[in-house]
């Protein structure tokens, strides 16, 4: 499970801002989503092809959280992003 990877769908445009926040624009549904700093960190890691365990490592290195909490947070975001059809599991 910790080796699972996701990829952003092609019709998503992501913009990261100076303070770490970001915005995702879905060109299919014409919706946009605001991501806070930690969510944007996870999105950037997904774009770079990182696995769940690698993303958790980045979160624990950046924030004061346990590995379990980092994995749980990343999984929650994966589910939300999948629900809105912004990413899919890597093949």
């Amino acid at each position, binding site marked *: 499970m910790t080796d699972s990877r996701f990829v952003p769908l092609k*019709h998503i*445009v992501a*913009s*990261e*801002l*100076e*303070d770490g*926040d*970001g*915005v995702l*624009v879905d*060109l299919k549904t*014409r*919706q*946009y989503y*605001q*991501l*806070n700093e930690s969510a944007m960190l996870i999105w950037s890691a997904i774009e770079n092809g990182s696995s769940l365990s690698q993303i958790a490592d980045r979160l624990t290195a950046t924030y004061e959280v346990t590995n379990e909490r980092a994995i749980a947070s990343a999984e929650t975001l994966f589910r939300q992003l999948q629900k809105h059809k912004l990413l899919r599991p890597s093949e």
Partner: protein
Amino acid sequence: MLEDFCFRGSARAPWRSNGSSTPKGTRHYSVADRTLCFQGVDELLDLVHDFLSGYYFTPADSSDVRNQPVHLIEIHRSAPPAFSSDNPGFAIEDGYCYPDQDQIVLRVNGSTIAVSAPELNRTDVWLSDTTASRHTLALNNVILYAVQAALRRGNMYQFHAAGVLAPDATRGMLLVGDSGCGKSTLTSILIRNGWRFVSDDNLLLRETPSGVLAWALRRYFTYDELTLDACKLRQFPDAIGQRVPGDRGKIRFYARRAFPESFVETCLPGVILFPAIGAGPKTRIEPVKSGDALARLLRQCPWAICDTATAPDHVRALATLIKQTSSYSVVTGRDVFDDPSSIPGLISQRINE
């Protein structure tokens, strides 16, 4: 009224083909280093010229633009071809948009606009000859949609905002918000207090190596009667123009005639303000987080999300604009209404803290 009567029924619009072969004309216009080439019969090109004269489009000679990329907008007298798209489309103001890969087809006020993929530098417009479609407002609307789409394909984005510069500032301030939020009123107060201006409501954004620049797009400001009085603008009778067709409550105001030394064609924005009219006693100016600021810009720029061919670059330009600026919300209080001249000081003090 008379025109409606004359063209009713099966009467043809003056530009419809009657079998004779009227030669097509070509006219070039430049704005912010981008050139648009309009092709069509002279009656149609005259309509385009009248419309563009309200904006900072400069007629250009074809020899002047030989080495520049030119976007062709051809205006047809014939019926449009059939367009097939799997996309059900979505509503836009006065019409519908049908994206199809890198092309978009717009049906606006009965007329059809096909905007080709960016690399083709081409937009085709088929004007409808129904009475409603022939109305000047409808035609202007069609031309505006075509021009905006053509400019987007040159990485230039129409932006609903005012642009001003403080007296000694090197970077500009954009006032962003819906109609009625106080952009034009605030702009006029700032100008009367020595600020310079780019526009009260209509800008063109362009990403350059040194950042996103804002260019003046529309030549005139628009005010209602009350604001003209409140801002003491009637003392410039030469600057007051005609009522705005389609919005009779608004009057055109040519600010460059009233304040010729205060106009600047372009600026590099350093601050974004989101004004709103409040009911409290004091004006509040608060920082806006960058993610919220970008979301607000996206709400003002629907084509950044809807024109799929240009959306990635458009979103990136807006994100760059947010990165190069500090954003604030300004909720005006009664203090500003009691003493309008206090607002420039309030703004300058808060954003320099």
